[in-house]
């Protein structure tokens, strides 16, 4: 039995603590917004936040998240239920094609903007290079991150 918080909700998961966080969350809680791409930390599709830090949940044992705050794509919206600035920017730039990588892209972009509110192209390249988009929407992801950065700066005053 592993105790943790998922999207703010205290949760107990009754599975082997060695189970990767990805599968524990997807199969035990029904939160399937986080995706499986490679299983070896090479694609970023499975990105979740653990205590605010982006992690590759396919390669993170559930036990490592014990007692911590886990956030998935389902928990990234603002407290009032409106979409996060990054999600808004994703819609504005019509980023997703198949959409399968996008939960991971968004989770990684949210973390990037938290640490680097005004990222340069190099910052974006570096932070996002771990997330594969097989549909090749990199140009749009880059533009959307910049839009989200602007929106957050304006909101933050």
């Amino acid at each position, binding site marked *: 039995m592993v105790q943790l918080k998922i999207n703010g909700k205290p949760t107990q998961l009754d599975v082997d603590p060695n189970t990767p966080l990805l599968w524990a969350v997807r199969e035990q809680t029904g939160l399937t917004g986080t995706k499986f791409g490679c*299983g070896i930390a090479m694609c970023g599709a499975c990105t979740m936040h653990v205590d605010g830090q982006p992690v590759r949940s396919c390669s993170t044992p559930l036990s490592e998240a014990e007692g911590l705050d886990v956030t998935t794509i389902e928990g990234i919206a603002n407290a009032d239920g409106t979409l996060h600035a990054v999600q808004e920017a994703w819609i504005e730039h019509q980023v997703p*094609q198949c*959409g*399968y990588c996008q939960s991971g892209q968004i989770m990684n972009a949210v973390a990037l903007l938290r640490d680097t509110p005004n990222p340069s192209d190099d910052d974006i390249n570096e932070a996002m290079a771990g997330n594969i988009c097989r549909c090749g929407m990199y140009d749009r992801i880059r533009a959307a991150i910049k839009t989200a950065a602007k929106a957050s700066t304006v909101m933050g005053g």
Partner: protein
Amino acid sequence: MADATEKKIKVKKEKEKGPRKGRWTRRGFIGAGLVAGGALVVGVAIRPGDRTDTLAEYVAGDGEHLLTAWVKISEDNTITAIIPHGEMGQGIHTALSAMLAEEMDADWDALDIIEAPAEKDYANFPLVREFATGGAKVPGFVFDTLNGAMLGLAKKMDMQITGGSTSVRFTGTGAMQTAGAATRELLMRAAAKDWDVSVDSLRTAKSMVYHDASNRSGTYGSFAAAASEMKPNLQPKLKSRKDYTLMGSPLPRVDIPAKVDGTADFGIDAKVDGMKYATVMASPVHGQTVARIDAKDAEAMPGVISVHNMGDYVGVVADGYWQAKQALDSLDVDFTTSDASSLSQEQLFAQYAESLDTGKRKTMHKAGNVAKGAEGAAKTIEAEYSVPFLAHACMEPMNATAWVRDGKADIWCGTQNPLGTRMAVAKAMELDAENVTLTTAFMGGGFGRRATPDYALQAAALSKVSGHPVKLIWSREETTQQDHYRPAVLGRFKASLDADGMPLTWESVFNHEGEPKEASDIVYAIPNKLVQVVDSPSHTRLGPWRSVDHTQHGYFTESFIEELAHAAGKDGYEYRRALLADKPRFIKVLDAAAKLGKWGEPLPEGQARGISIVESFMTIVAQVVTVDMSGGDPRVVHVACAADPGFAVNPDGFEAQMQSGIIYGLTAALYGEITLEGGAVAQSNFHDYEILRMDEAPKIDTIILTSDARLGGGGEPGTPPIAPAVANAVFNVTGKRIRKLPMRDLGLGAAS
């Protein structure tokens, strides 16, 4: 039980109606009728006998009227477009709905969209309509598949049509627009009758009919019932482009909101009560079977329910995917071997070379006489090119969920071929197709891979043997090694030039005859040509890969023509222009790309541009890329892309498809290579089958040209031109011609 009886009755009725095959007629059938349960139907029938009653059963609820197979209208004026294609990211739900709504004058903001059920009736209509109106001969057979219908027909008609590139061209124009216009006419006639005014005095907008003279208006919903009793016009008048309000303007894609908040359901997200998880490993050498399996340890692992020898693969069913995967990894399995089990990549290409030397040649394209044409040539150029196998590497690993029990099967999965998948499951499970349901989901990438239902068949088989509803998930490794690959191809090229450097002859021979046939043809005005193919049997599974044979032939042709330009001492852009002088559409696209890519303008040291142009799926695409070689390996800094698809229904969606196709093709050009070792695929995951990432992704600018050509595809035509454009740019910096893909590890130095 009542259910079963009803089904039986229906099957019987169908038999009484006689065989389902029939001669296609030259015209589509649009019929109207009232069916049981109060649902009113105006149906588009596709062969003698109206089939819309079966459709209504699947898609129309109480108080809903199915007006043609592609739209239903409820009395509260909710209009629902029924889209017969899966969404794999190409934005097809949006584009096709817009085509329907445009002609129908439906309120776009209040339009609902659903995916059509996997029923034969949805498979057939657009093709008939398309070919009936296009004047092509329509063969008299019944298709079993949805997108597969396109492939089936395409095969018979000697053209290959795949997935996304067919949807707008065939279903869009052939079905959606026609149905929209026919529906609008019906509703206007119903209103005219009700108000006792002439149809000409009416206008429509946003799902309403107006009679301005008497200040009356009514919703489409209020006329749906009356409309359904009228006989629709078989050939309704379509709008002219200048009157479009939806088509041609950038429409936000309807599938996007769910793809940013985690609610979009892909195949892998299926949730079924009591569901267990499975994973599989098939013989690494394709075509071999399980020789021996020791499952003792695996069966004893926690969470493992059962281990199965399925003949050509082994499967583990467990409480969770991870447990199934752990158990699979611990299995001790041997597979049978064959001659193929020692085949290496070098031997494979040696076999190809051998068949080019001695194999029986089949002529694909011919003009003039190459032997005569070459007499008196000033120069002869020869070159050999090759491309490797490529995996699709869809972001979402292959998966399907199945529940097979009590003489029925329910399947949930993402597929490019819903009806074909349903039929294949029925056949494999020895069930009546009536007893197989298929629920489709978003696809995390298709690119041709999800046209083959192998993964759904495995899910069904594992559900059946284990007695549980089973979600089968392939590992990334299995997804990479059990793909149906873009063929590896070796091609030899020869051309002769006159004293001015213009080509007199063009000859080529290559292995693998795929689709579409025109891919290996050349568009350039060369008086004598001979294009031939030899057979090259492969034990490795092959399949359609984004843009199909245009990927290899686009690269070959656009590289070799550049070699000719170079031999002639001419600029690649000008040389192409001269050879395309009689093709104004091509010239326009080429000029637009050259302008957008600043052809001829100075660049920093270590950089150069390359150009190419390829027509595929009726869309012409030219690209000018800027490549930087200062790091020793090609880095693409900019891509200028010009495309003429005739008309882009959703320009923003079309642009996204070009961007996507370019990155897909660039990944292949730089990194993509599946090799064989001991007859098995050597690559397994993203560390050795690399995908282009953000830090290497070029800036892409796209310009869309409009012409009066018929609608071309969007999903695929962006891919073929990029590899040759990059290779040509690399040559322009380094003087080294790249005749083999991918471009890494070729010992390309920085410009000296």
